């Protein structure tokens, strides 16, 4: 299950400056664990106590995973995972 993970500027220090990296796994949890093997340190910036950090939003195919099963959200071949810090308008 190869997925594309888009990395925000602030986390690109972990990916050698790459904007998008490949990940493997049939759940978001597995994808993040897989990323950690090649980009050590990135997991801690996304996950805290087995939950997504409060200020980090993760979308699979543009839908927020907090509403689709959190870290257990399924990922399929060709899916696009986007990581974004929280922002606000107004």
């Amino acid at each position, binding site marked *: 299950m190869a997925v594309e993970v888009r990395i925000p500027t602030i986390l690109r220090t972990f990916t050698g400056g790459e904007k998008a990296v490949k990940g493997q796994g049939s759940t978001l949890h597995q994808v993040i664990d897989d990323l950690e093997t090649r980009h050590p340190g990135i997991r801690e910036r996304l996950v805290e106590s087995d939950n997504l*950090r409060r*200020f980090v*939003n993760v979308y699979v195919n543009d839908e*927020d995973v907090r*509403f689709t099963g959190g870290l257990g959200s399924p990922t399929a071949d060709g899916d696009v995972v986007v990581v974004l810090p*929280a*922002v*606000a308008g*107004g």
Partner: protein
Amino acid sequence: MTRFASLIDSVGHTPLVGLPNLSPSAKVRLWAKLEDRNPTGSIKDRAALGMIRAAEADGTLRPGCTILEPTSGNTGISLAMAAKLAGYRLICVMPENTSVERKQILAMWGAEIVSSPAAGGSNEAVTVAKKLIAEHPDWVMLYQYGNRANADAHYETTGPEILADLPEVTHVVAGLGTTGTLMGIGRFMAEHKPEVKIIAAEPRYGELVYGLRNIDEGFVPELYDASYVSSRFSVGSRDAVRRVRELLEREGIFAGLSTGAIVHAALGQAAKAVKAGESADIVIIIADGGWKYLSTGAYDTDIDTAEEFLDGQVWA
């Protein structure tokens, strides 16, 4: 009702119009709530008025007061109109990369502007405003991100208007900024028609906006309560531009850019309903008109140029 005692009294009461050309089928219909019909041209008139009235009622805001507010534009414009009529001084803290039209409109209504660094977006405007208010304890910050009166305005007006005009409503899709719109409508629907799904569209800000900010310092408005939201979609600049043009070309509605993101999320939801063979009546909140964004080139340049220009802009 079409006659009002004053401009302030005309806030809300916006029309709900069908979108026959964008609706995917006779069973899955889209409806647009035209919030650009408010006095200053955006949905923020509801929140601004609600917050001012609440602050006057509890004695926080008294004649002669100075109001300070972090804003990316629309709330500031609404506050400027209301403050002018009520005789308050208004200072807006806004990111320096908000569109030039917004600054001109604010100045026209007599508001003063303090710029915050573009790199921090709305979050940085909030930080700067909090610093200023600490230095000027006599000023009043209504603070739309944490002011319950912001969400209450939508609980008391937007939600009831939708249900009255479209009793068969199944989904409401709106932008996620201060979260006031979605929290207010969500709370109203939870109490009056709990099966209605509340869908949030989050415009995906250009990466330069948050490029310099530490991820741990991200900002979630205090008003936000995930239990009122059924689903959240992140929408990129390209899709937002494409949809805002589609809305104009196919339905004749000239909307602002965050509305393009909302339309994209709504069409995604509509496609899901079609696939599942379900009926749906989906309300799209048109947050504002396109007038304030003409200088961005979003409506008349080629889409690559428009997308490029929009990355790094503050939309909502």
